[in-house]
Structures are given as C-alpha cells and as structure tokens.
C-alpha cells in the first residue's frame, strides 16, 4: 500500500513540476517555489529576538542576510524568509531560534514571485504604477509593505533597485501570475 505514496509528484503553486519563469521585455517573472516562510510575533512585553542573526526591521522595512530575510508585517510582527527551505519544517527551525515568540508556518499559505529587471529601476517602477497604489519612488530597496493588487492582498518587497518580490496567497497563484504577466506584457508595447 505504501508504495503508492512514492508515486506522488510534487507540484508548485502554479501546478507544474518545475517553477515557472517568463520574460516580458526588460522584466522577468519567476516563481520562487523554494522559499520557506514563517511568521514571528512578539507576545506582550517581549523584546525582538535576532533569529538566524537577523536584526528584525522596523515599520515598512525588510532586511536580508545570506539565505535568510525578514520583513515587517505589523506591529511586533514579521515574516521570515528562507531560501531553499520550502520543503523542510522551516517554522520549527525559526521556533528553535526564538522559542519565546509565536511562530506560525506560512510556506503553504503563500506563493512568491520574483520580478527582475534587466534595465534598472525604471521597468520595476512602471510595473508598480500599473498594479498598486504605492509610490514607487518612496518604495526603494529595503522597503516592504502589504497592499491590494487586483483585489488580492499581497506583500511587496523591494529587494533591490531592479528587483521586486510579490508574495500572494497560494490559492490565488494563477490569478496573481496572470495579473503580473498581463501588466508586464503591456509595458513591452
């Protein structure tokens, strides 16, 4: 009976065996299927820990250090990102770094799309102007926020001048990809 379990094929949030990547002019959108996510919240009166050595960022900011990164999601709350940790129990790793805090696994709830520009900041900012009501000029490298994008809620992280991550709800991965891809394609004209 157990033999059948080994026949299962893991698929990404977009339903394929391998992550999707597509280019539209200067912009390339890539599904980041390997990203492990867990949220960390302080309980009343606690001070912020430094999980994996990360100094947890203040309001609206993101930090990264090697394979780990963190962005602010609310008062005394952060999302912690770990490259290549989607298939391990990353929440347990984070909990052992910050045993006093509230930690919740988030990898299965979200999907991350990484947008890279081959022509600097301008194409990233043009895409933001089409999709979200956030001032791209005030949203430079190291900024992170949550906002609405075509009626979906997303986290935006400006990883660099020419890189933007969009993290949305996993069940809406197809719709989110469609929204990003259509906007990027229209910028090509």
């Amino acid at each position, binding site marked *: 009976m157990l033999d059948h379990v080994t026949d299962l094929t893991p698929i990404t949030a977009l339903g394929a065996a391998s992550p999707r990547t597509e280019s539209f002019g200067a912009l390339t959108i890539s599904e980041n299927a390997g990203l492990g996510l867990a949220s960390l919240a302080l309980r009343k009166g606690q001070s912020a820990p430094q999980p994996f050595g990360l100094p947890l960022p203040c309001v609206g900011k993101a930090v990264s250090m090697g394979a780990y990164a963190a962005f602010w999601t609310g*008062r005394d709350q952060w999302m912690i990102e770990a490259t290549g940790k989607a298939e391990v129990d990353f929440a347990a790793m984070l909990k052992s770094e910050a045993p006093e805090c509230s930690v919740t696994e988030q990898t299965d709830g979200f999907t991350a799309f990484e947008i890279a520009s081959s022509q600097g900041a301008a194409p990233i900012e043009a895409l933001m102007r089409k999709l979200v*009501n956030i001032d791209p000029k005030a949203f430079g490298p190291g900024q992170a*926020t*949550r*906002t*609405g994008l075509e009626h979906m*809620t997303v986290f935006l992280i400006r990883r660099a001048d020419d890189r933007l991550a969009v993290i949305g709800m996993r069940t809406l991965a197809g719709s989110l990809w469609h929204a990003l891809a259509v906007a990027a394609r229209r910028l090509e004209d």
Partner: protein
Amino acid sequence: MLIPHPLLGLRDSQEFTYLGDASLMQRPDASLDNAEAAFCDYVFLRDNPAGVHRELWFHEQGDRSWLVVTRDTTTHEILGAELASDVKGAAK
C-alpha cells in the same frame, strides 16, 4: 481617498474596511446591575452626527491594525488617524 496611517503614511482607502463609531471601544461592564440595558444601548444606539465623527477602520490589506479615523461626514475630509491600541492605552 487616502487615509493617513500613523505608521505607514498615506494609504489607499480600499485597503481598509470600516466598522463604525469609535465609541464601540467603550464596551459596558457586564458585571453591573444595569448591564442588560447598557448593552442594549451599546448594540443598537448610535449618534449620527453631521460633521466630525470618530470611527473605527481596519487596515485589512495592510498591517491589520485598527485605526480611529476622524472624518467630517459632511465633506468626507479625513482629519486624522490614530492607532486604536494607542487610544485604548491612553484611556486606561
């Protein structure tokens, strides 16, 4: 319409959901003798001012904070916004 979020700056009002009169934060004491009448008023009675009104807004597509937004109901001008947790803390 933009809401001046105390932490995040000006944000699109579409990111928020509206709850109602900020006096909802003053829940009656359930242990008092007149609790039933007080809760009846709390649930059903609202002032409906033409002018400045303090109301609860939830930053749902944002940092999930509750705000007390002061709005002029005749012009829809937003006069200010505070974190509800700060308002509650200051009242204690």
